[in-house]
Protein backbone atom coordinates (compact mmCIF):
# COMPACT_ATOMS: atom_id res chain seq x y z
CA UNK A 1 0.00 0.00 0.00
CA UNK A 2 1.08 3.55 -0.60
CA UNK A 3 2.79 4.67 2.65
CA UNK A 4 0.98 8.04 2.61
CA UNK A 5 -2.43 6.43 2.50
CA UNK A 6 -1.42 3.84 5.05
CA UNK A 7 -0.28 6.46 7.54
CA UNK A 8 -3.47 8.42 6.96
CA UNK A 9 -5.62 5.37 7.71
CA UNK A 10 -3.54 4.28 10.69
CA UNK A 11 -3.58 7.76 12.22
CA UNK A 12 -7.34 8.10 11.79
CA UNK A 13 -7.93 4.68 13.35
CA UNK A 14 -5.73 5.61 16.32
CA UNK A 15 -7.46 8.96 16.72
CA UNK A 16 -10.94 7.44 16.83
CA UNK A 17 -9.72 4.74 19.21
CA UNK A 18 -8.21 7.33 21.55
CA UNK A 19 -11.38 9.43 21.53
CA UNK A 20 -13.39 6.39 22.58
CA UNK A 21 -10.91 5.14 25.19
CA UNK A 22 -10.51 8.61 26.68
CA UNK A 23 -14.28 8.92 26.96
CA UNK A 24 -14.45 5.59 28.82
CA UNK A 25 -11.62 6.40 31.20
CA UNK A 26 -13.09 9.86 31.83
CA UNK A 27 -12.10 13.38 30.98
CA UNK A 28 -9.84 13.95 33.94
CA UNK A 29 -7.35 16.77 34.05
CA UNK A 30 -3.71 15.81 34.20
CA UNK A 31 -3.50 17.42 37.65
CA UNK A 32 -6.17 14.96 38.81
CA UNK A 33 -4.35 11.88 37.54
CA UNK A 34 -2.48 9.65 39.95
CA UNK A 35 1.05 8.53 39.11
CA UNK A 36 -0.35 5.14 38.19
CA UNK A 37 -2.90 6.62 35.78
CA UNK A 38 -0.16 8.86 34.37
CA UNK A 39 2.09 5.90 33.58
CA UNK A 40 -0.82 3.94 32.07
CA UNK A 41 -1.60 6.93 29.86
CA UNK A 42 1.98 7.13 28.59
CA UNK A 43 1.93 3.39 27.86
CA UNK A 44 -1.30 3.72 25.86
CA UNK A 45 0.08 6.73 23.98
CA UNK A 46 3.39 5.15 23.06
CA UNK A 47 1.69 1.89 22.03
CA UNK A 48 -0.62 3.73 19.62
CA UNK A 49 2.28 5.89 18.42
CA UNK A 50 4.39 2.84 17.67
CA UNK A 51 1.46 1.28 15.80
CA UNK A 52 1.37 4.28 13.49
CA UNK A 53 5.09 4.14 12.80
CA UNK A 54 5.82 0.40 12.62
CA UNK A 55 4.29 -0.72 9.34
CA UNK A 56 5.51 -4.27 9.89
CA UNK A 57 3.36 -4.83 13.00
CA UNK A 58 -0.28 -5.69 12.47
CA UNK A 59 -3.53 -4.43 13.94
CA UNK A 60 -3.09 -6.84 16.87
CA UNK A 61 -1.07 -4.09 18.56
CA UNK A 62 -4.21 -2.01 19.03
CA UNK A 63 -5.45 -4.62 21.49
CA UNK A 64 -2.97 -3.34 24.06
CA UNK A 65 -4.53 0.13 24.58
CA UNK A 66 -7.97 -1.48 24.83
CA UNK A 67 -6.83 -3.99 27.46
CA UNK A 68 -5.11 -1.23 29.45
CA UNK A 69 -8.32 0.81 29.43
CA UNK A 70 -10.39 -2.16 30.59
CA UNK A 71 -7.90 -2.79 33.42
CA UNK A 72 -7.99 0.88 34.47
CA UNK A 73 -11.81 0.94 34.54
CA UNK A 74 -11.92 -2.41 36.37
CA UNK A 75 -9.50 -1.15 38.99
CA UNK A 76 -11.75 1.87 39.48
CA UNK A 77 -14.75 -0.36 40.26
CA UNK A 78 -12.67 -2.58 42.55
CA UNK A 79 -11.46 0.38 44.60
CA UNK A 80 -15.02 1.65 44.75
CA UNK A 81 -16.25 -1.60 46.26
CA UNK A 82 -13.51 -2.59 48.70
CA UNK A 83 -12.16 -0.32 51.43
CA UNK A 84 -9.11 -2.46 52.05
CA UNK A 85 -8.22 -2.66 48.37
CA UNK A 86 -8.61 1.10 48.07
CA UNK A 87 -6.19 1.67 50.92
CA UNK A 88 -3.70 -0.64 49.25
CA UNK A 89 -3.88 0.94 45.78
CA UNK A 90 -4.55 4.59 46.53
CA UNK A 91 -3.03 4.99 49.99
CA UNK A 92 -4.64 7.04 52.72
CA UNK A 93 -4.57 10.62 53.94
CA UNK A 94 -1.97 11.44 56.62
CA UNK A 95 -2.61 13.98 59.38
CA UNK A 96 0.35 16.38 59.47
CA UNK A 97 -0.91 19.01 61.93
CA UNK A 98 -3.35 18.08 64.67
CA UNK A 99 -4.73 20.70 67.07
CA UNK A 100 -1.96 23.01 65.99
CA UNK A 101 0.84 20.52 66.72
CA UNK A 102 3.07 19.22 63.94
CA UNK A 103 3.27 15.42 63.92
CA UNK A 104 6.90 14.66 63.04
CA UNK A 105 6.39 10.89 62.94
CA UNK A 106 3.66 11.12 60.31
CA UNK A 107 5.79 13.51 58.29
CA UNK A 108 8.63 10.99 58.31
CA UNK A 109 6.30 8.16 57.25
CA UNK A 110 4.92 10.22 54.38
CA UNK A 111 8.43 11.42 53.40
CA UNK A 112 7.13 14.98 53.71
CA UNK A 113 9.53 17.77 54.67
CA UNK A 114 8.95 20.99 56.59
CA UNK A 115 9.70 22.94 53.41
CA UNK A 116 6.89 21.06 51.63
CA UNK A 117 4.57 21.80 54.55
CA UNK A 118 5.39 25.52 54.60
CA UNK A 119 5.03 25.76 50.82
CA UNK A 120 1.61 24.11 50.74
CA UNK A 121 0.38 26.09 53.76
CA UNK A 122 1.37 29.34 52.02
CA UNK A 123 -0.44 28.12 48.91
CA UNK A 124 -3.58 27.80 51.03
CA UNK A 125 -3.14 31.33 52.39
CA UNK A 126 -1.98 30.17 55.83
CA UNK A 127 1.20 32.18 56.41
CA UNK A 128 1.03 31.77 60.19
CA UNK A 129 1.19 28.33 61.72
CA UNK A 130 -0.74 29.74 64.70
CA UNK A 131 -3.82 29.86 62.50
CA UNK A 132 -3.78 26.17 61.58
CA UNK A 133 -5.86 23.66 63.51
CA UNK A 134 -5.60 20.66 61.17
CA UNK A 135 -3.55 19.89 58.09
CA UNK A 136 -4.04 16.66 56.18
CA UNK A 137 -1.74 15.40 53.43
CA UNK A 138 -4.06 13.79 50.90
CA UNK A 139 -3.21 10.72 48.87
CA UNK A 140 -2.85 12.84 45.74
CA UNK A 141 -0.20 15.05 47.38
CA UNK A 142 -2.38 18.09 48.05
CA UNK A 143 -2.68 19.53 51.55
CA UNK A 144 -6.08 20.23 53.10
CA UNK A 145 -5.99 22.89 55.81
CA UNK A 146 -8.55 23.64 58.49
CA UNK A 147 -7.86 26.94 60.19
CA UNK A 148 -8.76 27.60 63.81
CA UNK A 149 -12.35 28.77 63.93
CA UNK A 150 -11.43 32.36 64.80
CA UNK A 151 -9.45 32.68 61.53
CA UNK A 152 -12.16 31.34 59.22
CA UNK A 153 -14.08 33.94 57.17
CA UNK A 154 -17.31 35.09 58.81
CA UNK A 155 -20.46 33.27 57.74
CA UNK A 156 -24.06 34.49 58.07
CA UNK A 157 -24.45 31.81 60.76
CA UNK A 158 -21.71 33.42 62.88
CA UNK A 159 -23.59 36.71 62.59
CA UNK A 160 -26.96 35.07 63.26
CA UNK A 161 -28.28 36.41 59.98
CA UNK A 162 -31.12 34.68 58.26
CA UNK A 163 -30.50 33.64 54.67
CA UNK A 164 -32.65 32.53 51.79
CA UNK A 165 -32.19 29.11 50.24
CA UNK A 166 -29.70 28.94 47.43
CA UNK A 167 -29.54 25.88 45.22
CA UNK A 168 -28.20 25.12 41.80
CA UNK A 169 -29.33 27.29 38.93
CA UNK A 170 -30.99 25.31 36.12
CA UNK A 171 -30.02 25.70 32.49
CA UNK A 172 -33.12 26.67 30.51
CA UNK A 173 -31.64 27.78 27.19
CA UNK A 174 -28.20 26.82 25.94
CA UNK A 175 -26.74 27.88 22.57
CA UNK A 176 -30.22 29.01 21.49
CA UNK A 177 -31.84 25.65 22.24
CA UNK A 178 -34.50 25.20 24.95
CA UNK A 179 -33.76 22.33 27.33
CA UNK A 180 -37.34 21.10 27.73
CA UNK A 181 -36.57 18.54 30.40
CA UNK A 182 -35.21 21.22 32.71
CA UNK A 183 -38.31 23.35 32.15
CA UNK A 184 -40.56 20.45 33.11
CA UNK A 185 -38.45 19.63 36.18
CA UNK A 186 -39.31 23.07 37.49
CA UNK A 187 -43.02 22.72 36.60
CA UNK A 188 -42.71 25.42 33.99
CA UNK A 189 -43.75 25.49 30.37
CA UNK A 190 -43.03 27.30 27.15
CA UNK A 191 -45.71 29.91 27.89
CA UNK A 192 -43.91 30.93 31.03
CA UNK A 193 -40.61 31.09 29.14
CA UNK A 194 -42.05 33.21 26.30
CA UNK A 195 -43.55 35.61 28.84
CA UNK A 196 -40.26 35.93 30.67
CA UNK A 197 -38.35 36.52 27.45
CA UNK A 198 -40.87 39.10 26.25
CA UNK A 199 -40.52 40.93 29.56
CA UNK A 200 -36.79 41.11 28.90
CA UNK A 201 -37.40 42.33 25.36
CA UNK A 202 -36.34 39.12 23.63
CA UNK A 203 -38.58 37.95 20.80
CA UNK A 204 -36.47 35.13 19.34
CA UNK A 205 -35.22 32.21 21.43
CA UNK A 206 -32.34 31.57 19.05
CA UNK A 207 -30.96 35.00 20.06
CA UNK A 208 -30.38 33.68 23.56
CA UNK A 209 -26.92 32.31 24.25
CA UNK A 210 -27.59 31.14 27.81
CA UNK A 211 -30.54 31.35 30.21
CA UNK A 212 -30.24 30.18 33.79
CA UNK A 213 -33.12 29.92 36.25
CA UNK A 214 -31.92 30.68 39.77
CA UNK A 215 -33.56 29.08 42.78
CA UNK A 216 -34.98 32.44 43.88
CA UNK A 217 -36.95 32.54 40.61
CA UNK A 218 -34.84 35.16 38.86
CA UNK A 219 -33.57 34.56 35.34
CA UNK A 220 -30.03 35.17 34.11
CA UNK A 221 -30.07 35.99 30.40
CA UNK A 222 -27.19 36.42 28.02
CA UNK A 223 -27.91 37.33 24.42
CA UNK A 224 -25.69 36.32 21.53
CA UNK A 225 -25.00 39.81 20.25
CA UNK A 226 -24.73 41.54 23.61
CA UNK A 227 -21.30 43.10 23.98
CA UNK A 228 -19.60 45.73 26.14
CA UNK A 229 -18.32 48.82 24.33
CA UNK A 230 -14.74 47.57 24.37
CA UNK A 231 -13.87 43.92 24.09
CA UNK A 232 -10.56 42.14 24.01
CA UNK A 233 -9.31 41.18 20.60
CA UNK A 234 -8.04 37.62 20.66
CA UNK A 235 -5.24 37.32 18.17
CA UNK A 236 -4.37 33.95 16.79
Amino acid at each position, binding site marked *: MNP*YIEILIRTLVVFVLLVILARIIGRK*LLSQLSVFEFVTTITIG*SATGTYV*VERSKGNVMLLSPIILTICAVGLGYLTLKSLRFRKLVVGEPVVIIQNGEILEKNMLKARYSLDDLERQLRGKGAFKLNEVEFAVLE*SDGTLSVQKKSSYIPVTPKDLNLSTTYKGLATEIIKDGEVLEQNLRQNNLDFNWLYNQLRKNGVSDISDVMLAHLNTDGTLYLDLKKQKPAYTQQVED
Partner: protein
Amino acid sequence: MPEYIEVIWKTMVVFLILAILTRLIGRKLLEQITFFEFVTGVTIGTVAGAYIVNAIKGAWVLLSPVIFTVCTIGLGFISLKSLRIRKLVEGEPVVIIQNGKILEENMFKARYNLDQLEMQLRNKNIFDFNEVEFAILEPTGQLSVLKKTPFLSATLKDLNLSTNYKGVATEIIKDGDVLEQNLKQNNLDFSWLYNQLRDKGINDISKVMLAMLNTDGTLYIDLKGEKPQYTQKVED
Protein backbone atom coordinates in the same frame (compact mmCIF):
# COMPACT_ATOMS: atom_id res chain seq x y z
CA MET B 1 25.36 12.08 5.01
CA PRO B 2 27.08 11.62 8.36
CA GLU B 3 24.70 10.31 10.96
CA TYR B 4 25.11 13.12 13.46
CA ILE B 5 24.22 15.79 10.89
CA GLU B 6 21.11 13.83 9.98
CA VAL B 7 20.10 13.65 13.62
CA ILE B 8 20.65 17.40 14.03
CA TRP B 9 18.47 18.49 11.12
CA LYS B 10 15.83 15.87 11.80
CA THR B 11 15.58 17.03 15.40
CA MET B 12 15.30 20.63 14.29
CA VAL B 13 12.55 19.79 11.79
CA VAL B 14 10.61 17.88 14.46
CA PHE B 15 11.08 20.71 16.96
CA LEU B 16 9.71 23.23 14.49
CA ILE B 17 6.75 21.05 13.56
CA LEU B 18 5.90 20.35 17.19
CA ALA B 19 6.16 24.07 18.05
CA ILE B 20 3.67 24.92 15.29
CA LEU B 21 1.28 22.03 15.99
CA THR B 22 1.10 22.59 19.74
CA ARG B 23 0.45 26.28 19.16
CA LEU B 24 -2.44 25.33 16.87
CA ILE B 25 -3.92 22.92 19.42
CA GLY B 26 -3.97 25.74 21.94
CA ARG B 27 -2.25 27.18 24.96
CA LYS B 28 -2.64 25.16 28.10
CA LEU B 29 -0.68 24.40 31.21
CA LEU B 30 0.21 20.77 31.67
CA GLU B 31 -2.07 20.53 34.68
CA GLN B 32 -5.02 21.82 32.63
CA ILE B 33 -4.59 19.15 29.98
CA THR B 34 -7.20 16.40 29.87
CA PHE B 35 -6.50 12.71 29.63
CA PHE B 36 -7.36 12.73 25.93
CA GLU B 37 -5.05 15.61 25.09
CA PHE B 38 -2.29 13.98 27.07
CA VAL B 39 -2.61 10.59 25.37
CA THR B 40 -2.73 12.31 21.97
CA GLY B 41 0.38 14.26 22.94
CA VAL B 42 2.26 11.10 23.86
CA THR B 43 1.26 9.48 20.56
CA ILE B 44 2.45 12.50 18.58
CA GLY B 45 5.66 12.53 20.60
CA THR B 46 6.28 8.84 19.99
CA VAL B 47 5.80 9.22 16.23
CA ALA B 48 8.05 12.28 16.10
CA GLY B 49 10.69 10.52 18.19
CA ALA B 50 10.55 7.44 15.98
CA TYR B 51 11.12 9.64 12.92
CA ILE B 52 14.41 10.86 14.40
CA VAL B 53 15.65 7.49 15.66
CA ASN B 54 14.48 5.01 13.02
CA ALA B 55 16.74 5.26 9.98
CA ILE B 56 14.46 3.26 7.67
CA LYS B 57 11.46 5.53 7.79
CA GLY B 58 10.80 8.29 5.34
CA ALA B 59 9.46 11.78 5.97
CA TRP B 60 5.90 10.50 5.41
CA VAL B 61 5.86 9.49 9.08
CA LEU B 62 5.59 13.18 9.93
CA LEU B 63 2.17 13.30 8.26
CA SER B 64 0.74 11.53 11.28
CA PRO B 65 1.24 14.37 13.82
CA VAL B 66 -0.28 16.80 11.31
CA ILE B 67 -3.35 14.59 10.80
CA PHE B 68 -3.66 14.23 14.58
CA THR B 69 -3.63 17.98 15.06
CA VAL B 70 -6.20 18.55 12.32
CA CYS B 71 -8.49 15.90 13.86
CA THR B 72 -8.10 17.36 17.37
CA ILE B 73 -8.93 20.87 16.19
CA GLY B 74 -11.83 19.56 14.08
CA LEU B 75 -13.28 17.65 17.01
CA GLY B 76 -12.98 20.79 19.15
CA PHE B 77 -14.98 22.82 16.63
CA ILE B 78 -17.66 20.16 16.22
CA SER B 79 -18.15 19.81 19.96
CA LEU B 80 -18.31 23.59 20.28
CA LYS B 81 -21.14 23.71 17.76
CA SER B 82 -23.22 20.72 18.81
CA LEU B 83 -24.56 20.16 22.31
CA ARG B 84 -25.12 16.46 21.68
CA ILE B 85 -21.62 15.71 20.39
CA ARG B 86 -20.13 17.69 23.27
CA LYS B 87 -21.99 15.48 25.72
CA LEU B 88 -20.85 12.38 23.87
CA VAL B 89 -17.17 13.30 23.65
CA GLU B 90 -16.65 15.20 26.88
CA GLY B 91 -19.17 13.65 29.24
CA GLU B 92 -21.26 15.70 31.61
CA PRO B 93 -21.11 16.84 35.21
CA VAL B 94 -22.51 14.37 37.76
CA VAL B 95 -24.35 15.51 40.89
CA ILE B 96 -22.79 13.73 43.87
CA ILE B 97 -24.51 15.56 46.75
CA GLN B 98 -27.98 17.01 46.30
CA ASN B 99 -29.69 18.94 49.10
CA GLY B 100 -27.17 17.51 51.53
CA LYS B 101 -27.79 13.87 50.54
CA ILE B 102 -25.09 11.72 48.95
CA LEU B 103 -26.25 10.04 45.74
CA GLU B 104 -24.64 6.59 45.81
CA GLU B 105 -25.89 5.59 42.37
CA ASN B 106 -24.28 8.55 40.69
CA MET B 107 -21.05 7.86 42.58
CA PHE B 108 -21.02 4.30 41.24
CA LYS B 109 -21.68 5.45 37.69
CA ALA B 110 -18.85 7.94 37.89
CA ARG B 111 -16.53 5.39 39.56
CA TYR B 112 -16.05 7.91 42.35
CA ASN B 113 -15.48 6.63 45.87
CA LEU B 114 -16.17 8.12 49.29
CA ASP B 115 -12.47 8.66 50.04
CA GLN B 116 -12.17 10.80 46.94
CA LEU B 117 -15.28 12.77 47.92
CA GLU B 118 -14.00 13.40 51.43
CA MET B 119 -10.60 14.36 50.09
CA GLN B 120 -11.95 16.85 47.58
CA LEU B 121 -14.30 18.37 50.15
CA ARG B 122 -11.40 18.79 52.59
CA ASN B 123 -9.44 20.41 49.80
CA LYS B 124 -12.28 22.94 49.59
CA ASN B 125 -11.94 23.62 53.35
CA ILE B 126 -15.07 21.66 54.16
CA PHE B 127 -14.61 19.32 57.10
CA ASP B 128 -18.30 18.99 57.94
CA PHE B 129 -20.71 17.33 55.50
CA ASN B 130 -23.57 19.26 57.09
CA GLU B 131 -22.35 22.40 55.37
CA VAL B 132 -22.77 21.00 51.85
CA GLU B 133 -25.91 21.63 49.82
CA PHE B 134 -24.65 20.56 46.39
CA ALA B 135 -21.49 18.84 45.17
CA ILE B 136 -20.92 18.24 41.47
CA LEU B 137 -18.19 16.12 39.96
CA GLU B 138 -17.05 17.92 36.83
CA PRO B 139 -15.97 15.95 33.73
CA THR B 140 -12.45 17.18 34.44
CA GLY B 141 -12.39 15.34 37.78
CA GLN B 142 -12.72 18.48 39.88
CA LEU B 143 -15.43 18.82 42.50
CA SER B 144 -17.56 21.98 42.59
CA VAL B 145 -19.24 22.64 45.92
CA LEU B 146 -22.13 24.88 46.88
CA LYS B 147 -22.42 25.29 50.64
CA LYS B 148 -25.68 25.84 52.47
CA THR B 149 -26.33 29.55 52.70
CA PRO B 150 -25.64 29.99 56.44
CA PHE B 151 -22.16 28.56 55.87
CA LEU B 152 -21.16 30.67 52.89
CA SER B 153 -18.79 33.56 53.61
CA ALA B 154 -20.86 36.58 54.57
CA THR B 155 -21.01 39.04 51.70
CA LEU B 156 -21.66 42.76 51.76
CA LYS B 157 -25.14 41.96 50.44
CA ASP B 158 -25.87 39.80 53.51
CA LEU B 159 -24.92 42.80 55.66
CA ASN B 160 -27.00 45.19 53.52
CA LEU B 161 -23.98 47.38 52.81
CA SER B 162 -23.70 49.40 49.63
CA THR B 163 -20.67 48.82 47.43
CA ASN B 164 -18.77 50.66 44.71
CA TYR B 165 -18.32 49.24 41.22
CA LYS B 166 -15.12 47.26 40.84
CA GLY B 167 -13.88 46.18 37.44
CA VAL B 168 -10.58 44.99 36.04
CA ALA B 169 -7.71 47.46 36.37
CA THR B 170 -6.16 48.72 33.10
CA GLU B 171 -2.42 48.64 32.45
CA ILE B 172 -1.23 52.16 31.60
CA ILE B 173 2.56 51.83 31.81
CA LYS B 174 4.43 48.55 31.58
CA ASP B 175 8.22 48.18 31.73
CA GLY B 176 8.53 51.92 31.19
CA ASP B 177 6.41 51.96 28.02
CA VAL B 178 3.05 53.75 27.86
CA LEU B 179 0.25 51.59 26.43
CA GLU B 180 -1.49 54.30 24.38
CA GLN B 181 -4.45 52.20 23.34
CA ASN B 182 -5.43 51.58 26.95
CA LEU B 183 -5.19 55.32 27.68
CA LYS B 184 -7.49 56.06 24.75
CA GLN B 185 -9.99 53.37 25.80
CA ASN B 186 -10.47 55.22 29.08
CA ASN B 187 -10.78 58.60 27.31
CA LEU B 188 -7.52 59.80 28.85
CA ASP B 189 -4.49 61.38 27.26
CA PHE B 190 -0.81 61.93 27.86
CA SER B 191 -1.29 65.28 29.63
CA TRP B 192 -3.52 63.55 32.19
CA LEU B 193 -0.84 60.90 32.70
CA TYR B 194 1.95 63.48 33.07
CA ASN B 195 -0.12 65.38 35.65
CA GLN B 196 -0.75 62.22 37.62
CA LEU B 197 2.92 61.26 37.58
CA ARG B 198 4.02 64.81 38.52
CA ASP B 199 1.65 64.71 41.49
CA LYS B 200 3.52 61.65 42.70
CA GLY B 201 6.90 63.28 42.08
CA ILE B 202 7.81 61.25 39.01
CA ASN B 203 9.19 63.13 36.01
CA ASP B 204 10.50 60.28 33.89
CA ILE B 205 8.09 57.68 32.48
CA SER B 206 10.90 55.19 31.84
CA LYS B 207 11.42 54.92 35.60
CA VAL B 208 7.94 53.44 36.00
CA MET B 209 7.90 49.65 36.15
CA LEU B 210 4.11 49.30 36.22
CA ALA B 211 1.19 51.71 36.37
CA MET B 212 -2.36 50.41 36.64
CA LEU B 213 -5.56 52.43 36.53
CA ASN B 214 -8.22 51.07 38.86
CA THR B 215 -11.90 51.48 38.08
CA ASP B 216 -12.31 53.89 41.01
CA GLY B 217 -9.84 56.27 39.29
CA THR B 218 -6.87 55.63 41.57
CA LEU B 219 -3.50 54.75 40.13
CA TYR B 220 -1.16 52.00 41.33
CA ILE B 221 2.44 52.89 40.53
CA ASP B 222 5.57 50.82 41.05
CA LEU B 223 8.94 52.40 40.27
CA LYS B 224 12.03 50.60 39.07
CA GLY B 225 14.57 50.34 41.87
CA GLU B 226 11.96 50.87 44.58
CA LYS B 227 12.67 48.32 47.28
CA PRO B 228 11.84 47.54 50.88
CA GLN B 229 14.72 47.78 53.31
CA TYR B 230 15.29 44.05 53.47
CA THR B 231 14.69 41.80 50.53
CA GLN B 232 15.18 38.13 49.96
CA LYS B 233 18.37 37.15 48.22
CA VAL B 234 17.54 34.54 45.64
CA GLU B 235 20.44 32.17 45.25
CA ASP B 236 20.90 30.49 41.92
